[in-house]
């Protein structure tokens, strides 16, 4: 190869054609291989990639249903949904969250509570889901945000419906409130139905009828781009709004009672004895449920928690009161029904009662006693001696059993969460509580509603309603009717069947009733003033229980201030012959039941009377 090879152009051309053919063959093979690669992706794995393409672009967005409305029995709105605006952040679009939150705090007025809640909310959420930072923006906040909007990438003002309670604190306890769903709520709620829902009932009616009020969620299939920005709606299943509910409550009675309490701590419950419908349920002091809907500030919450009046305690449902003399009509009924007394049997009241063979004396209200009194007089004048001896004669076991039939000592089963049980004195209760035997002296004071006795106002009202209905118990309840949607006829809820009658002999009932009528209308009754000017006969009973033990030093001090001395109660039903309303009023501090509690009951009865209700409850949904 020392010499330079000669150029053979003909040979070069042949060589080129050969190489070009080989090259083209290789190219064709490569293109076929590429086509096979496409085949593999587009045919063999088509299903898989089709699915991935869809999941890429289609987002299922839950649509929260509008919450059902709550009305009173006459169609007065107690809970509604109003339009509001909230601030939402899409974490994905925010580069520096801390800086953004600080900026929002300075510009819009987002506070520490909002930030803390937002951070808690972020846990476990995907970063493209927008989360609320601050609910219910004021107009000023919206304006401040709008002006600075350019600075806040990933932050939006979003319209939404929020719960509003037009009656405010008047129904804080009863209707309750909705609040943001938290981890605890998720344990009792069906997660799939609450995907788009931010709020759920926390207390009161909102809680117990969550199921009816919530409605069924809908969803939207939304086509999104790579930034998860929704572009168009592919399919939409509208949410089904929650049902509207009508309560048995009559706002007029509730309002009148609330006003009459004049901020004095206490509770009142009014029940229609014929059905168990609760006409009013008051707990004073109360709180504004609207504070809780969009997250109560820690300062507000602390103030409510720390208030000595315990505004967050639902006294009507859970309050613990010593029934005192209000228990006497029930004890009297027991004595008659159990055959221990007849209506005409008399007892001599000397001012002090002794258990035979014991030195300790049990006093009457009136020093020196009431003299010889029968059942009716004993109720009218609240003669302790009569009931001391009666309780002793019945014995604690019989007493416990019979009082239990009136519903004492256990929750009434009303449609609210968190009801108190009270205490019905009994041997087994004392054994379980103190691991001690029962003493006869305890039976004696149980006869006048003292000692271990504890009732809730609702329990007492329920017992009273049973008594007023001639011993026929009805389940106390708050749900009157359910309306599927606006415009539909509200459908009345069927009544639960009445319970086992407590009173067998109408004469026994009549005797007790007459005693209670005498309390209001008799010349010596303890609540004589409240019957004046009322067109119907009222049967009632006062109760005045000492708030403090007379042996303590506190008593020495407090006895100087009469108004602070007693827990005062009053119970009444009317018309006495055929009761349509039974009402219980409990005041935590007062002079005497007849003087302080009874006027509140009278105000409520006046309100009830204001619109005659020959058959209360048939006018569901009528405009107020």
């Amino acid at each position: 190869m020392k010499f330079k090879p000669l150029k053979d152009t003909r040979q070069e051309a042949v060589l080129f054609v050969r190489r070009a053919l080989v090259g083209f063959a290789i190219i064709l093979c490569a293109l076929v291989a590429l086509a096979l690669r496409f085949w593999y992706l587009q045919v063999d794995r088509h299903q898989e990639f089709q699915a991935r393409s869809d999941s890429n672009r289609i987002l299922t967005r839950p649509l929260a249903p509008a919450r059902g409305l709550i009305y009173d029995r006459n169609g007065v709105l107690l809970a509604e949904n109003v339009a509001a605006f909230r601030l939402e952040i899409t974490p994905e679009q925010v580069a520096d969250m801390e800086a953004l939150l600080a900026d929002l705090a300075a510009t819009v007025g987002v506070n520490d509570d909002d930030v803390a809640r937002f951070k808690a909310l972020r846990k476990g959420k995907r970063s493209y889901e927008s989360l609320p930072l601050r609910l219910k923006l004021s107009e000023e906040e919206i304006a401040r945000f709008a002006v600075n909007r350019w600075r806040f990438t990933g932050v939006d003002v979003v319209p939404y419906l929020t719960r509003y309670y037009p009656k405010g604190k008047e129904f804080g306890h009863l209707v309750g409130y909705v609040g943001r769903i938290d981890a605890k709520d998720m344990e009792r709620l069906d997660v799939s139905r609450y995907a788009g829902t931010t709020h759920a009932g926390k207390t009161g009616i909102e809680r117990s009828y969550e199921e009816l009020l919530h409605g069924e969620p809908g969803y939207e299939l939304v086509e999104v781009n790579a930034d998860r920005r929704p572009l168009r709606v592919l399919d939409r299943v509208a949410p089904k709004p929650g049902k509207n509910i009508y309560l048995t409550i009559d706002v007029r009675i509730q309002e009148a009672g609330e006003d009459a309490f004049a901020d004095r701590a206490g509770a009142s419950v009014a029940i229609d004895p014929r059905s168990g419908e609760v006409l009013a349920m008051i707990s004073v002091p109360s709180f504004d449920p609207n504070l809780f809907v969009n997250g109560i500030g820690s300062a507000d919450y602390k103030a409510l928690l720390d208030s000595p009046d315990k505004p967050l305690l639902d006294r009507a449902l859970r309050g613990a009161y010593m029934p005192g003399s209000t228990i006497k009509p029930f004890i009297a009924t027991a004595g008659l029904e159990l055959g221990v007394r007849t209506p005409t049997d008399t007892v001599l009241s000397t001012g002090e009662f002794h258990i035979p063979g014991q030195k300790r004396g049990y006093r009457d209200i009136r020093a020196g006693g009431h003299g010889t009194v029968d059942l009716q007089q004993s109720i009218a004048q609240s003669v302790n001696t009569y009931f001391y001896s009666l309780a002793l004669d019945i014995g604690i076991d019989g007493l416990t059993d019979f009082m239990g039939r009136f519903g004492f000592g256990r929750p009434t089963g009303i449609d609210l969460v968190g009801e108190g049980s009270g205490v019905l004195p009994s041997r087994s209760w004392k054994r379980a509580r103190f691991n001690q035997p029962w003493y006869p002296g305890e039976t004696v004071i149980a006869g006048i509603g003292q000692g271990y006795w504890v009732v809730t106002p609702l329990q007492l009202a329920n017992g009273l309603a049973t008594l007023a209905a001639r011993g026929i118990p009805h389940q106390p309840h708050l749900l009157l009717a359910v309306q599927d949607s606006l415009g539909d006829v509200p459908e009345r809820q069927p009544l639960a069947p009445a319970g086992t009658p407590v009173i067998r002999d109408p004469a026994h009932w009549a005797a007790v009733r007459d005693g209670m009528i005498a309390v209001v209308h008799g010349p010596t009754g303890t609540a004589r003033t409240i019957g004046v000017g009322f067109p119907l006969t009222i049967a009632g009973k006062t109760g005045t229980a000492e708030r403090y033990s007379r042996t303590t030093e506190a008593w020495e001090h407090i006895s100087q201030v009469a108004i602070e001395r007693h827990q005062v109660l009053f119970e009444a039903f009317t018309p006495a012959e055929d009761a349509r309303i039974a009402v219980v009023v409990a005041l935590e501090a007062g002079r005497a039941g007849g003087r302080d509690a009874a006027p509140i009951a009278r105000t409520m009865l006046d309100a009830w009377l204001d619109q005659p209700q020959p058959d209360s409850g048939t006018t569901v949904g009528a405009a107020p």
Partner: protein
Amino acid sequence: MIDTWLAGVRQSVMRIVRRPRVDFALLGALLLLALIGLATQYSASGLDRSQAMAQGVRLALGGTLMALIARIPPSTLRNWTPWAYAGSVVLLVVVALLGEGRGAHRWLDLGFVRFQPSELLKLTMPMMVAWYLNQRALPPDWTSLGVVGVLIAIPAGLIAEQPDLGTALLIVASGLFGVFLAGLSWWRIGLIAGSVAAAAPVAWHFLHEYQRNRVRMLIDPDSDPLGLGWHIIQSKIAVGSGGLWGKGWHNGTQSRLEFLPEHTTDFIFSVFAEEWGLVGVVLLLVLYAFIIGRSLWIAANAKDTYSRLLAGSISMAFFVYVIVNGGMITGALPVVGVPLPLISYGGTSAVSLLAGFGVLMSIHGHRKRVAA
């Protein structure tokens, strides 16, 4: 002297106008490809007329350039070759010193136009190899191979340094195709291939980190689904969801909803595959195969070695575009910035490709004259 030069220019222009020298089969195929490109472009840009129009203007410019080059006799091209090659390499050096561009020094701003000198090499590289081999006895011996190796390595190294791996790859390929078509013996090819394979680990060492990541992503795109793997995954989803018949024109959700990045440029093939399915892909590949085959046929019919080698190299380099881009969007090859010829959005590649086809047209149109 200037007068005679001017007269020569005038004479050339007159000749160009009088005698169109085109291969109508190739022209028709290119036209069809350009139309498919515009339609896909229009769809991928979200029915943005201005973008399709802009691309149309570029294609028209490229077409004009093609027509002009087609009139230049291959002998003239051959005479210009060393100067054109040297000039483009100098420009590469200039761009390496002064160039600008996002993250890479590729562009040269001449004030009225910005262009990538590396695009010039796509033409001057095969020209230079053909010019050199034309002077040598064929098949090439080791000396020829060594010289060609140097001719390829200088510009390829400068371009890879920019860094622009895709273009460097295309230029190296176009040079090597010249040697291959010149009849380099198979055992030498085997020897070279063997040593390249042996040198691969060393090359890996010299790759940029982003280039290495692209290779890594090819092996396991799901390891970084939102980062580098995103391109490959979304492209495969686009292609795969297209199925046999495709989602239909402008119904490709992957590109329309912007899941697919670069969906008008490097990844436009994914859009096409999503909207037209396997059927459309196969038809497009057939069209490409026809263009390559027809170009090789033109090369085979050229009457001198320079023209043959030049035409053959250009044809086969065209194939490299298709296979590298197709392999990339189906996840079979690494992500290398190579456009799909005449379909991807972008002026430089369209113009340089059409200029190449201008050379082919010239060789085709002047074959008899050369033979005479």
